[in-house]
């Protein structure tokens, strides 16, 4: 009896030990069979709200649809400064400027911008590009699924449950159809209002009302957008708007088959969450083969993807760093991308270290673990991460974080001398160098102007100095406290005392904040203001209400940021352009800044090509902003990303959304490393069980004693 059970136990322990030596990865969150496949693992923390290219406008959505939809143009993957190259377009659009002659006839011209009435963009697309396989395109004699009945849908839970799928060639009309969709009343495109101002006839087109039937909708025409033949179309815009070319590289201008709207418009599909917002239909390198926003999203290779090759040339240094090793090979390299729902940063970070994610950012909390600074001030990885052969990539993002003043506010706003001096004083005392050190682990560059590095017009060194906040001697040095105090008393608030109340001046800062982590940040801001004797009351709300306050002009001071849509200074300077003021037009000028000189300079700068003339205008614009200080220019955040050795061909590119197709995974190497890093530790468990059984002993003793007592009593 004893021996049998004993043997069984031994066997069990043996099995446990075996399995621990067996290199089984017990903590592997993926099925074991995926180990050797060329799959990239990434995550999403919140399900993307929209995957419809006409609606989608945030970075987490672009991470996915950038791989699926193909606009006309793309940014060159390797070259810097950022350069637009054709993607589905056969060549860069032909741009023609048109003016009216005396008789009102339009003629081509090359004259100065103010006289140009229209600009024509003639676009030619590549032949032979096909859409991904999709049931909307499945066709025999007729479309299979354009007339679905209730009983057809019984067994359908997701889009892959349709038996047939089809494809067809992308034609010019698909691009035009997408432009129409931008102003469809049922589709709320965030750029609809903007585009109506530029594209000829779009405003009139948007007034045709709610057309439910896509076929009728398709038949309507925009006067300024014309299909010329299967591969050519022309877009006419009002005046001159050189930035339009950047918009053509955004997913808003990717082809959309009219069949998609017919298919998804059918009754019953929306109830099953089958819609264009969740199951895109594009022509890109990848297609969304599974979209379960409750768990994971899977991109897999589009079998009909047209031939595209890895670029043959790049920046100097790209060859040395191995970025050109795959030059000329056909894209894409990775078979599948799995985005796993991961809401918390801790599990993500730990899984990254265990090798279950291929790349990661560096959260402030894991910073010390990952990064150390060398003697020369350069960031480098810690030995622990170096041992894992992780690589570090750093880049200054094309964004700016700032503290805005509401210029219509009676205390801090307006362009009076007094208010300006108050703003300048505040600009000096908010020590963003310290902020960056504490909260960003040094991952930021204090802003000297509106433009971050990488945007035309940014200047380093003494050239780019903000003389109202900094002094220059061999580097930027924030002006002294005494200067700020002097400015404050000149503004009429000597020692921070408001003369009207004889108490400390109270300022209100609005921000979107909720978590406990924000507490420290906001305390810091309060501390900065108290250096001047000013009281700062912080009104933190959720982002939604914060936006509303800004819109209605209720804020006094507010914290916000801007992420460039495209690498052009216009995309930053328009944030302070008077006609775009938030309160008047709901535009992006959140500070409600109004300055006639600035507006005129901005309009001139907007239409210039990059060059000395434009730089001159930018200098003037920057000077106005620095002097008037409608913003406390905060900092340009730096992004640090960590990449495992097996994840290759990665180069920071802040503009491109479709980077995935260039990258490559060495899955064999990954499988080996994962095994090495994830040996389960059994002995603490064995110890625990051992201690537990020892603890059982007294129970046994008491039980025996009691039994004896009962027997004795009997």
């Amino acid at each position, binding site marked *: 009896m004893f021996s049998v059970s004993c043997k069984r136990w031994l066997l069990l322990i043996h099995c446990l030990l075996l399995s621990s030596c067996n290199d089984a990865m*017990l*903590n*592997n*969150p993926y*099925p074991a069979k995926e180990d050797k496949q060329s799959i990239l693992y990434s995550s999403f923390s*919140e*399900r993307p*709200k*929209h995957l419809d290219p006409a609606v989608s*406008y*945030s970075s987490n959505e672009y991470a996915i649809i950038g791989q699926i939809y193909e606009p006309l143009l793309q940014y060159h993957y390797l070259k810097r400064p950022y350069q637009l190259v054709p993607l589905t377009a056969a060549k860069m659009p032909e741009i023609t400027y048109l003016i009216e002659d005396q008789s009102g006839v339009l003629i081509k011209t090359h004259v100065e911008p103010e006289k140009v009435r229209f600009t024509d963009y003639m676009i030619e697309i590549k032949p032979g590009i096909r859409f991904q396989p999709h049931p909307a395109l499945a066709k025999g004699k007729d479309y299979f699924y354009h007339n679905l009945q209730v009983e057809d849908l019984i067994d359908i839970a997701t889009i892959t449950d349709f038996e047939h799928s089809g494809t067809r060639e992308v034609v010019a009309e698909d691009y035009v159809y997408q432009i129409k969709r931008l102003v469809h*009343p*049922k589709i*709320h495109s*965030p*750029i*609809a*209002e*903007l585009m109506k101002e530029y594209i000829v006839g779009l405003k009139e087109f948007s007034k045709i009302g709610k057309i439910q039937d896509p076929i009728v909708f398709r038949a309507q025409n925009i006067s300024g957008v014309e299909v010329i033949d299967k591969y050519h179309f022309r877009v006419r815009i009002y005046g001159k708007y050189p930035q339009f070319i950047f918009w053509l590289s955004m997913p808003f201008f990717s082809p959309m088959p009219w069949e998609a709207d017919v298919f998804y418009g059918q009754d019953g599909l*929306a*109830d*099953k*969450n089958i*819609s264009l*917002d*969740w199951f895109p239909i594009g022509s890109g390198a990848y297609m969304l083969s599974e979209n*379960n926003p*409750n*768990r994971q999203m899977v991109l897999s290779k589009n079998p009909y993807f047209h031939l595209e090759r890895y670029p043959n040339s790049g920046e100097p240094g790209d060859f040395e760093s191995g970025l050109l090793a795959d030059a000329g090979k056909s894209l894409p390299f990775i078979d599948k991308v799995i985005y*796993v*729902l*991961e*809401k*918390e940063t*801790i*599990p993500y970070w*730990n*899984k990254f270290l265990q090798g279950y994610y291929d790349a990661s950012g560096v959260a402030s909390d894991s910073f010390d673990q990952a990064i150390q600074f060398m003697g020369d001030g350069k960031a480098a990885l810690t030995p622990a991460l170096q041992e894992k052969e992780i690589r570090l990539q750093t880049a200054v993002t094309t964004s700016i974080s700032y503290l805005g003043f509401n210029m219509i506010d009676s205390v801090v706003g307006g362009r009076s001398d007094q208010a300006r001096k108050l703003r300048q004083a505040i600009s000096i005392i908010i020590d963003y160098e310290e902020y960056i050190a504490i909260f960003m682990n040094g991952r930021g560059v204090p802003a000297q102007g509106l433009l971050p590095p990488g945007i035309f017009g940014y200047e380093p060194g003494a050239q780019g100095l903000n003389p109202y906040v900094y002094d220059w001697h061999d580097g930027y040095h924030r002006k002294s406290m005494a200067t700020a105090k002097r400015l404050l008393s000149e503004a009429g608030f000597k020692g921070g005392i408001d003369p009207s109340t004889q108490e400390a001046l109270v300022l209100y800062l609005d921000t979107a904040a909720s978590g406990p982590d924000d507490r420290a940040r906001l305390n810091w801001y309060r501390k900065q203001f108290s250096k001047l004797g000013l009281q700062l009351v912080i009104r933190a709300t*959720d*982002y*939604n*209400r914060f*936006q*509303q306050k800004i*819109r209605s002009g209720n804020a006094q001071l507010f914290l916000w940021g801007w992420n460039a849509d495209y690498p052009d200074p216009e995309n930053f300077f328009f944030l302070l352009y008077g006609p775009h003021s938030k309160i008047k037009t*709901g535009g*992006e000028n959140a500070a409600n800044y109004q300055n006639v000189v600035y507006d005129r300079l901005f309009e001139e700068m907007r239409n210039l090509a990059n060059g000395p003339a434009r730089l001159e205008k930018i200098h003037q614009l920057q000077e106005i902003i620095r002097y008037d200080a409608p913003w406390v220019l905060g900092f340009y955040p730096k992004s640090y990303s960590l990449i495992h050795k097996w994840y290759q061909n990665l180069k920071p590119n802040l503009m491109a959304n479709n980077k995935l197709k260039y990258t490559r995974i060495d899955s064999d190497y990954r499988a080996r490393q994962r095994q090495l890093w*994830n*040996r*389960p*530790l*059994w002995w*603490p*468990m064995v110890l625990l069980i051992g201690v537990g059984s020892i603890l059982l002993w*007294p*129970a046994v003793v*008491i*039980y025996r004693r*009691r*039994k004896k007592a009962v027997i004795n009593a009997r």
Partner: protein
Amino acid sequence: MIQYIIRRLMYTIPLLLGVNILTFFLFFVVNTPDDMARMQLGQKHVTEQAVSKWKIDHGYDLPLFINSEKGSFNKITETIFYQKSIKLFVFQFGISDSGRNIGADIKQRMWPSLAVALPSLLIGLLVNILAALLMVLFRQSYLEFWGLVACVVIMSISALFYIIGGQFLFSKLLKLVPISGFGSGVDALKFLILPVVISVVSGLGSGGRWYRALFIEEVEKDYVVTARAKGLSETQVLFRHVLGNAMIPILTGVVVVLPLLFMGSLIMESFFSIPGLGSYTIDAINRQDFAIVRSMVFLGSVLYILGLLLTDICYTLVDPRVKLL
């Protein structure tokens, strides 16, 4: 019996109506449809037109209770209250503020919730009863004393500590289970171990004490004393008589929570990123997706009331003395 059930069912209707009206007031007073639109349309370039468009599309452009512009019957039906609240009664949850069909999501997400909650409940029950029985078995010894102390200690630790500590120890240090996530089919098993263990352990304190109190009460009853006098050993007495007789309160206690298992555990699911209804609710709260929160409130209430109903029926089944009033 049937009549009794029908009568009980009828009683739930005013309850549900009450829940419905209460939540409606809460949600439409808190956030105006304008706020919702702005949040959903979100990031950049939100215009007034876009907001009103959104409101029209989601049916939030209607008046709250009475639509004076419409004809007789439509005065009531063409309102937010009718469209958004009354339809819940037929489980038409409608579209979430982010544009997905809530009903389909709920159907999909209740299974992972159940996969965590049901084992937690059953294993928890087993462990709790076992611990309680042991304490009763060794009553008036230092083992019981230390057992009770352990229970109080376990009770006094916040659930958050168990989760943070468990994840840190078993996933990060020992690498025995995945840190978080979920799989389909058998794959799900390895993700479930840690959440289930943690919920069992964190529930042991109060559960063990509760069942111990139950058993102690039972142990001192006359029939147990008789059984003991007949010469049955202590273990036999405990397992056969005490446990058997305590089964009724135990089972009814379980039945009342059974339907609520579908709702899942809010914190556990969001920590382990299990795609259940608990994390669904948390997300909705954080995103202020009121359509979802409203649906979940209603669903929760329905399930709770269902639990009450089941309990009543169970009582009548196991204990014929309960009058069918």
